[in-house]
């Protein structure tokens, strides 16, 4: 990099701080304030401090971008503010130590555009997230916002809008993948004086935050998409159902609604047309099942959020018995782009049956966790190893779970599979609303199935028998297996229960809840068998099946483990080999963590007996060479 000359802050620069929920919890509000104060104190007339919504790279938060250069700062703290202001904003010399470091090459990357996490993505839904101030409608308008709505109202009939969306191949991004245009058409053609347009923003999958970030980072695109949808199907009332645990999203959507009404993009006679739409925000009360469309509508009606059987479908009898259409946040955020750039443009991305892009919340054992948007059909390997930067700590990849808590776990042999609705379903998993959890060799697949089932079991509404009782029975069996109390017949029982719950449950929650168990039984049956037959956890993860031992030929008798053991179950003395009382040990792993690396005296094993003395004996091991420090 060439050293820049000091320009005394006269150069026009804007520093955008991320104010998504993740970065705010990393104190980005305080950072913004500190930056404003410092910029004012230094009297830098050309420098502006602004904020954006989520950039998606929450792993590196709080993040900031300095434009126009496009310098990207990661893991910024309040203490970094003076240096950023003095060195970069005043003197034009970027702060190198805050650059993002590539997890693979360990190379510092100054520019946003060069970061693999970003430049491998193709952003349609998230096109504005991290790029504009979500609390200013003018920013959205400046990017061409509300032009698509204008085009629909002035140049297109509702039928033409539906046709365009149908031709684009857009499918529901909430998980089911039903063609969006067809859904609109059903609702448009359903007889009824009042129709409702509903946006499903009740994102509840653990670890997923695609919808939240879209609403926090670019609320107007959701409103514009919703208004176009309402126009297409002839609806004058709309609801956005946002879970109340998303206070920032609720706040920004409410603000966007207000601004949009003031500008005449919502309300009566929008843009001088005879089309009117009023949108209400309804806050969900925290039930995962309310993401299911019929449960969501029951909740809006003030009833207990429980799904009901279909038919009748919401398109003919939905909210308050009226024809209703319900779309996910991401589907709606895509609509303005399809109208602006055309169905053919959109359909040119993706696979034959799955068009466009999809957003994933990439988490788990992955170097770059965060929000990514990729074209449909991209292989899983590319997502995990290129965008995601691979598995940290040179661990081995074991499985990837897609589709939220009800998705399946796919093994390495599926890494070259394209990511689309059909391929994932064929593999026993699903697209879902976009969770993607990566697991490495230290993840126990039985335990992970148990975890996901404990979530769906707790979130089952309780209405239908298979989901309410069946998932509990499955969970009990899995807990038993993880405790080492599994019986050989448990595998068949799990399989049978899983299949019957899938076939017998009322809604998608129950119909998909067994997926994590069924896919792990399919791809990782050996792990179940090891737990049941050998009482062994191959990943050394299930607490009841592992043991810690101190190797007598390595222990130096330093006593660190003894002092740190919370269960006080280690016996030993200075220069004596320490011994763990296996009866009292709680298997917390503290001894393994604290044993100095150069000794490496503590081992973790499962179903394996390590030869150790019963009582402390004098240390015989030779002292390892002193470390470099």
């Amino acid at each position, binding site marked *: 990099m060439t050293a820049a000359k000091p320009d005394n802050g006269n150069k026009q620069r804007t520093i955008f701080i991320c104010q998504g929920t993740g970065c705010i919890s990393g104190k980005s509000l305080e950072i913004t304030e500190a930056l404003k104060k410092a910029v004012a104190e230094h009297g830098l007339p050309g420098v502006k401090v602004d904020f954006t919504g989520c950039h998606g790279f929450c792993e590196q938060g709080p993040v900031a971008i300095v434009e126009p250069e496009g310098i990207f700062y990661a893991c910024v703290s309040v203490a970094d503010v003076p240096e950023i202001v003095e060195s970069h904003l005043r003197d034009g010399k970027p702060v190198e130590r805050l650059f993002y470091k590539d997890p693979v090459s360990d190379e510092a990357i100054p520019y946003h555009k060069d970061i693999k996490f970003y430049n491998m993505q193709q952003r349609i839904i998230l096109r504005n997230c991290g790029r504009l101030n979500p609390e200013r409608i003018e920013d959205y308008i400046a990017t061409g916002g509300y032009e698509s709505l204008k085009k629909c109202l002035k140049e297109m009939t509702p039928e033409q809008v539906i046709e365009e969306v149908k031709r684009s191949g857009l499918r529901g991004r909430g998980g089911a993948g039903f063609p969006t245009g067809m859904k609109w058409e059903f609702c448009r053609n359903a007889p009824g004086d009042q129709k409702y347009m509903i946006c499903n923003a009740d994102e509840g999958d653990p670890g997923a935050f695609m919808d939240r970030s879209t609403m926090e980072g670019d609320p107007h695109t959701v409103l514009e998409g919703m208004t176009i949808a309402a126009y297409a199907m002839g609806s004058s009332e709309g609801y956005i159902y946002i879970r109340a645990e998303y206070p920032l999203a609720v706040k920004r959507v409410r603000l966007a609604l207000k601004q949009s009404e003031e500008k005449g993009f919502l309300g009566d006679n929008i843009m001088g047309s005879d089309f009117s739409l009023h949108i209400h925000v309804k806050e969900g009360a925290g039930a995962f099942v309310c993401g299911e469309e019929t449960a969501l509508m029951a909740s809006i009606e003030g009833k207990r959020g429980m799904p009901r059987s279909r038919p009748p479908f919401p398109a003919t009898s939905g909210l308050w018995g009226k024809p209703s259409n319900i779309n996910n946040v991401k589907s709606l955020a895509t609509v303005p782009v399809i109208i602006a750039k055309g169905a053919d443009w959109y359909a040119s991305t993706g696979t034959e049956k799955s068009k466009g892009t999809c957003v994933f919340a990439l988490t788990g054992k992955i170097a770059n966790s965060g929000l990514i948007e990729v074209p449909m059909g991209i292989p899983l390997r590319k997502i995990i190893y290129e965008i995601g930067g691979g598995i940290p700590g040179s661990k081995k990849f074991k499985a990837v779970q897609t589709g939220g808590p009800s998705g399946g776990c796919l093994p390495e042999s599926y890494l070259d599979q394209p990511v689309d609705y059909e391929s994932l379903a064929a593999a026993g998993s699903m697209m879902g609303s976009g969770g993607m959890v990566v697991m490495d060799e230290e993840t126990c697949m039985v335990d992970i199935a148990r975890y996901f089932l404990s979530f769906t079991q707790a*979130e089952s509404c309780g209405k239908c028998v298979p989901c*309410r009782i069946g998932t509990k029975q499955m969970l009990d069996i899995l807990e038993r297996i993880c405790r080492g109390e599994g019986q050989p017949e448990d595998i068949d029982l799990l399989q049978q229960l899983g299949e019957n719950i899938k076939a017998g449950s009322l809604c998608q929650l129950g119909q998909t809840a067994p997926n994590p168990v069924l896919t792990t039984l399919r791809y990782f049956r050996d792990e179940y068998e090891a737990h049941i037959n050998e009482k062994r956890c191959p990943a050394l993860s299930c607490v009841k099946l592992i043991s810690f031992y101190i190797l007598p030929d390595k222990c130096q008798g330093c006593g660190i483990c003894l002092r740190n053991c919370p269960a006080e179950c280690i016996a030993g003395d200075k220069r004596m080999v320490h011994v763990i009382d296996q009866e009292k040990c709680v298997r917390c792993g503290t001894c393994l963590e604290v044993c100095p690396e150069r000794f490496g005296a503590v081992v973790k094993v499962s179903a394996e007996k390590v030869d150790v003395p019963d009582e402390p004996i004098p240390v015989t091991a030779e002292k390892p060479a002193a470390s470099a420090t």
Partner: protein
Amino acid sequence: MDHITLTINGQEIKATRGMTVLEAAQSADIYVPTLCHYPDLEPYGGCRLCIVEIDKMRGLPTACTTPATDGMVVTTESDAINSVRRASLELILSTHPCDCLECHRRERCGPYDICLRHVAVTDRCVVCPSNNNCELQEVVDYIGVHELRIPRDTAPRTIDNSNPFFDLDRNRCILCARCVRACQEITGVGAIDMAYRGYGMKVATFGDVPLLDSICRSCGECMVRCPVGAITPKEPAVPEREVKTVCTYCGVGCSMYLGVKDDKIVSVRGDEEGPANQGRLCVKGRFGIAEFVNSSERLTTPLIRKDGRLVEASWDEALALVADKLGKYRGDEVAVISSAKSTTEDNYVMQKLARVVLGTNNVDHCARL
């Protein structure tokens, strides 16, 4: 009427548009097992026992929620259906005391017999007030479950016996929600609802307070619809015979069957054919009849006060006395008050007597006071 024709198990069936597949099957005497369906409640689809296969429909839709359409082809039994149906029933049984269901001696066992299988008293069908009147027993017999492949959950659940007329024993509850729907759809009270989520779901009042402290009006519509023995009367009894009558408590004219045993009223049942009530009753009709009819203090003949003492008299004697005394008054000298316990017809005749015979418009009614 708009008629449709559908095929169920190869049999052609005429049905009315608007019927569900279950109703169409029942109208043709085709049995489809169900526990959450009840004729006068909205379809629920919770027990998943009435699953069927329908041509051109995915999966196993429930007959109780699927509208019957013209030309529909339905199958109510197949290996796939039976497997899932049986699994759901086993799951229901895993949360219900059902040891007797698995016992081959069930028919011959009584509540005071010693159980040779050492089954806990609370787990025995024979001590349940709904024994032999239990829809779960019927369904188990039909599907043929004799053993459970999954463990039973015998953890005790709370019993609400605060209501003076009926008990809610959640240990026997299968969460079919008939009671909840009856309280909401039939009576419009909404005293009970499903509370909590998932496996922890239970029937509860607002704030999970005892029924007596809730807005429950004790009408017992929930109890009538309970398919098992979860909501049962405090004093359950099996009558020897039933007598059809009209409730005397108010003028609505609810038709009811009084169950009689040893010349005493032991039970009350709403008459589903009754035009005024269609089977429904209120707390007074359902739980208040036997108390006053069987009361030793109840008047059974007219009484006439003679020399300051009430003396039993015949109806002729009493009516003659009343006619004689009332005949002396006309117009504003007299007023007539009739009773809310009388029927509309009786009250009509009473005001006719006042206006035409006594010549007065001073007519009133105790329900308005």
